């Protein structure tokens, strides 16, 4: 599926998650954040980088992982990305939605 983000055609899945991380950049990121009603701050960027780093190392993402991230605590995580913080932050970070590991 294609979606126009930041005046560019970006490949996304049915839920809007980027399919190809190479198409992600700060502009795309800010656009998606805007759609989620999130205004990016220094702290947001720090979290996004942490998530991308974990993803590229193939390490699963979880709320528990955030607790041990050293970047922020869970309460702050919820404040930065209200609603479902993991779902939103990964969407903004251009990486897949964490699987629930059934």
């Amino acid at each position, binding site marked *: 599926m294609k979606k126009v983000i930041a005046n560019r055609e970006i490949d996304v899945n049915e*839920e809007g998650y980027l399919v190809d991380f190479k198409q992600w950049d700060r502009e795309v990121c800010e656009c998606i954040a805007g759609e989620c009603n999130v205004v990016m701050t220094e702290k947001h960027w720090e979290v996004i980088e942490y998530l991308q780093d974990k993803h590229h190392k193939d390490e699963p993402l979880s709320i528990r992982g955030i607790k041990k991230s050293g970047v922020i605590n869970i309460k702050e995580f919820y404040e930065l990305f209200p609603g479902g913080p993991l779902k939103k932050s990964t969407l903004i970070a251009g990486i897949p939605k964490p699987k629930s590991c*059934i």
Partner: protein
Amino acid sequence: MKNLVILGAGTSGTMMANHLVSKLPKKDWKITIVDQYKTHYYQPGFLFLPFDTYTEDQVKKEGKKFIPKGVYYIQKKIDKILPEENKVALEDETLSYDILIVATGSKIAPDETDGLLGPLWKKDIFDFYTYEGALALRNKLREWEGGKLVVHITEMPIKCPVAPLEFAFLADSYFKNKGMRDKVDITYVTPLDGAFTKPTCTKALNYLLKEKQIKIETDFAIMEVDNDKKAIVDYVDREIPFDLLVTVPTNMGDEVIERSGLGDDLNFIPTHKHTLQSKAHENIFVIGDATNLPASKAGSVAHFQAETLTDNIILYTKGFKLKQEFDGHANCFIETGNNKALLIDFNYDQEPVHGTFPFAKIGPLKLLKESVFNHWGKLAFRWIYWNMLLKGIPIPFVGRNMSFKGKKFDIKADN
């Protein structure tokens, strides 16, 4: 003489002992299995204990009875794995190994959640993931007069991810049969965004919750249990009050994994998802709940893994390349109450779908649809478990890899 050591004589370890004893040449290999307990529990039965459906005797047997002749059984606590020395330290002796299979499972860690082990633990707060917990809950339910029942999952992954939902369904039936359903308010609380862990299931099965008048709270990441207010509280200060809390605490691998420096945050061992070899050491293999694989932590999954792992162990002993075979295949019955059940079949990539099982068009089991047949299937699983599964006897017609025959790929996962 070479040594193959299996750690843990639960579902997976016992299956591996039974598979390998006939496949590894006796003159070359000594097989040893270690477990701390005398008793082997049929954990799927813990779901039924609280409702007086099963008795204590139906869910436990002496573990040694299932270990085949020719395998050395040691009943001791495992203290530490020393991968650099190819040794395992038990409480009072040390074993050397050429190949190690880790099958130490996972268990609840209630101390991971603030307030869970507070004054209400085992008074108004129970787990049913342990034998003791399930029995204590049974005794509570026998005399409980009703109120707010909250069924809760702390965080994923948990073993048998559908068990908490089954608990809620069975509770609905249980209270109906006792003629007190109107006195009980059931709420299901999950950290996920839907009742089922798989989106296609949520779509096909959400009607069940409505039908049974079970309320649902999603995206709930618990911060603490407030013992004074009798409520669970999440990180955005959402409070859910309870009179009786049935929770599935955080599931973690055994401490021995942490002591040995082999695990992740939750003491699960990083494992290659198609071969079951550990990522850090080529002569250490991992099976069942002890792995970090994105597959269900379930006995049926361990059963499929055991077949692949057996082949890979043999290949490894002969110096061949391992098979990239295991596909995350899971096959689970879901009890829905009133003597009915559902069946779901899926793998790493393929979401559960409608259709028939195990034979295309014929069944007799129906995928993703409630039926009495499926319920019998679930009850039969106990017999199959003790008499076939543990002994490594293949379950007829059900292959280690997921089959696409008889399945309708009709529900898209879009939520």
